[in-house]
């Protein structure tokens, strides 16, 4: 009793996807790249970052690929100029808040490189660097690198089911904490590391990797 398949075109190529597939699923099935920051295939689509905006024929404006379901016959343009402009601006704005460029191996740095986003041009406020919170034997917070994508919170909820992480603060001060901002050890954390695994910026990372994480001293953009 498999659901009927839908046929959509991605950048001119027809691709068949199961009912319920998202535009992002279709793009990936067609082998096309769509930038994402808040998306993780292990979690339900969230649609927060707006990096995955694509053009859909007939739509008045670009749509987020990760949360838009496919319709039969839909024509998708993954390199829609308006969508890409927004994606570039999103990534550049995210980078502009960080006190230093994210490590070159982080997902954020890789997305920025692929989009060709260099050093941010925005002169706005940056998070103050602070020493890593390495009170846990394995998991470390580097709060100044948090971009509030929510992936760690959702990994803790939807993948592990421990609900130890919470989004806090608003606007520029949005961040993530364990428990009531008491560190991983004192929280309900079961040390599974799903948060570090999904984090696109090393705001949560492994203590043993801190020394290996190459970060620039100034915010010169990803190298």
């Amino acid at each position, binding site marked *: 009793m498999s659901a009927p398949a839908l046929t959509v075109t991605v950048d001119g190529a027809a691709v068949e996807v199961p009912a319920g597939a998202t535009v992002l699923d279709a793009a990936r099935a067609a082998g096309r790249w769509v930038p994402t920051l808040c998306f993780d295939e292990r979690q339900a689509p969230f649609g927060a970052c707006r990096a995955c905006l694509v053009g859909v024929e007939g739509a008045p404006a670009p749509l987020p690929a990760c949360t838009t379901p496919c319709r039969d016959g839909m024509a998708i343009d993954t390199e829609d100029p308006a969508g890409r402009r927004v994606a570039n601006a999103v990534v550049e704005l995210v980078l502009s808040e960080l006190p230093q460029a994210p490590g070159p191996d982080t997902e954020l740095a890789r997305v920025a490189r692929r989009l060709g986003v260099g050093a941010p041009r925005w002169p706005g406020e940056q998070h103050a660097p602070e020493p890593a919170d390495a009170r846990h034997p394995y998991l470390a917070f580097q709060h100044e690198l948090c971009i509030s994508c929510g992936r760690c919170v959702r990994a803790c909820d939807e993948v592990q089911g421990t609900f130890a992480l919470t989004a806090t603060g608003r606007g520029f001060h949005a961040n993530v904490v364990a428990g009531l901002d008491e560190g991983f050890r004192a929280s309900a954390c079961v040390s599974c590391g*799903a948060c570090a695994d999904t984090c696109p910026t090393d705001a949560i990372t492994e203590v043993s990797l801190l020394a290996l994480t190459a970060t620039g001293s100034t915010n010169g953009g990803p190298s």
Partner: protein
Amino acid sequence: MTDDRSASTVTTTCGYCGVGCRLEAHTLDGGIASISPALDGPANEGHTCLKGRFAHRFARHRERLTTPLIREERRGPLRPASWDEAIERIAAELTRIRSAHGHDAIAGLASSRATNEDCYAMQRLMRAAIGTNNIDNCSRVCHSPTSYAMRKALGLSGATGSFSDFDHADAAILIGANPTDAHPVAGARIKQATLRGMRLVTIDPRRIELSDYGVLHLAPRPGTNAAVMLGIAHVLERDGFVDRDFVAARTEGFDELAALLPAYAPEAVEAISGVPAADVERAARIYGEAQEACVSWGLGVTEHKYGSEVVQLICNVALMTGKIGRRGSALLPLRGQNNVQGSSDMGALPDTFTGYQSVGDEQVARRFEAVYGRPIPREKGLTIPQMFDAAVAGELKAMYIFGEDVAQTDPDTAHVVHALESLEFLVCQDIFETETTKYADVILPASSFLEKSGTFTNAERRIQLVAPAIEPPGDAKTDFEIIKLVSAALGHELPWETPADAMVEIAALTPDFAGVTHARLGRGGLQWPVAADGADAPILYEQEFTRPGGKAHFAALPYKVPGDAADEEFPLILVTGRRLQHYNAGTMTRRTGNVELLDADVLEIHPDDAARLWISEGDRISVRSRVGRIELPAHVTDRIEPGHVFTTFHFPETRTNLLVGASADVNTSCPEYKVVAVDVRPLGEEPARVPALA
């Protein structure tokens, strides 16, 4: 996480519990830099726990064995030796003992932590190079009752489905297992299923974490699982939940069971188990009303005097409702160790060759003899507890123990130590010195799962590839190489270059593994039985059962009292188990950052019992059973029912298994770790009587 900070990344299979997470091991400068979960791992789907992900530092711990060690005389000091010297010593001693006392004076243990190929090589060494069926593995002390019972009831020794069946189930019963601690990734999957609406019934003397997510928790007295399962069967039958067509077409023996059920009305079950009658009724209805439902269990079912019978009673419940052989309706034993399934599949058992083919079957034995070129006895060998009894009796003279710390993990530690001391010669093959190696004459430095190639078989019968990410330290060798060396020195060359070659031989000798090759396993593995064309079997018994006539068998087994019971002198019942941060004997996890998260065994005790005994949180207390006594700190918690206490055996300084007696499963001699009558009191308070130590 794709991580380019590492020099290379190797996809392998976790060596901790039986879930079988696929892992990406990232290496740097010859060590493990980091481990992340493989997104396409069928059992873990991009998730893993703190053991699989973080507890890898043991692999480069300074206490790793890096060279063979020899004792010139029994209990003398250890000194380093060359591989040649160590292997020659082993060959000379085993040959001498065999000549003087016969083949059956020697016994070997394969390891549920090692690969299928290691275990297969070990059983071939014992059967062909030594000439005895005295080969067993540590599944004896955990899931041998599951294997026995599932073969009897259904045909094959393994789960009928996969962990993903929880995603398709409307309800599930979880009995005698605490997966969020012991099988964390399966635990997370079950928890997510409950959050999506799966109705979970937990049955355990402790209120486990998943009980908080379920719709009903039953807390039977330890040792009364049989009564609860019979009570559930009673209600299912009485209230019309029996699938009569399924029972008629696909099973036999239902009438005998039905004749037994009137005696297990919920009120009668309440009297035996302490579970309120209304809760037995509700549990049965939740299971019966579900379209698809799973039953999952762990060592809280098996490690009892009648553990194998309870597994058969669990099978009964699935069979009478026809909830088997479909997506979402599976029987899923939670295997304790990474390769509990495989070590037994590989014939590291005293009564069976690979694929549970009987050693007494003339045709089978001849096939093995033809390949091995050696005569193999037709009589069953000794099980682990029988080996220790034989050693104490002076009949067993030598043991070759590979990857098991029997002096810490097996029951009745005093008896085990007596057995090891009684041997003339003991070889241990391990990655660290352990409680057991204290009695070894030769210690061979072996390899961890991060250093070897081969396959593990997880709790879903899924055979998955293990690939080396790093080299064994110093002069340590892989277990496969070591067993080959020893076998060759005994005059029986094992004819394989690599573990993949060994798998070719396994496949040729084992119908259930006919189509298994390392190349075919790929990234996702295969669930046996695997046909010659490579087709595997995610769901068993869709059409028929693997028994004579294709029919499943109902077991009409009444409840029987457990081997130990609380009395005036020993008023509390001790249950032992595992915690999230540590793994069994703790040989690996105690040598990682996990000790910062948990650094001692504690005794869980209910606030009412603690108050009566004048015990406060953190007090050091004495725990005394009929066979031994230990001291450890108390943890006062209402997770445990009054009358019961709980602890773990992760730390050798605690020596929890000194307390466990000789009571064991009647069919498989799996020890009764889960029911030990004890006396608990604050330290310094004199016990009324000094116990007679065995």
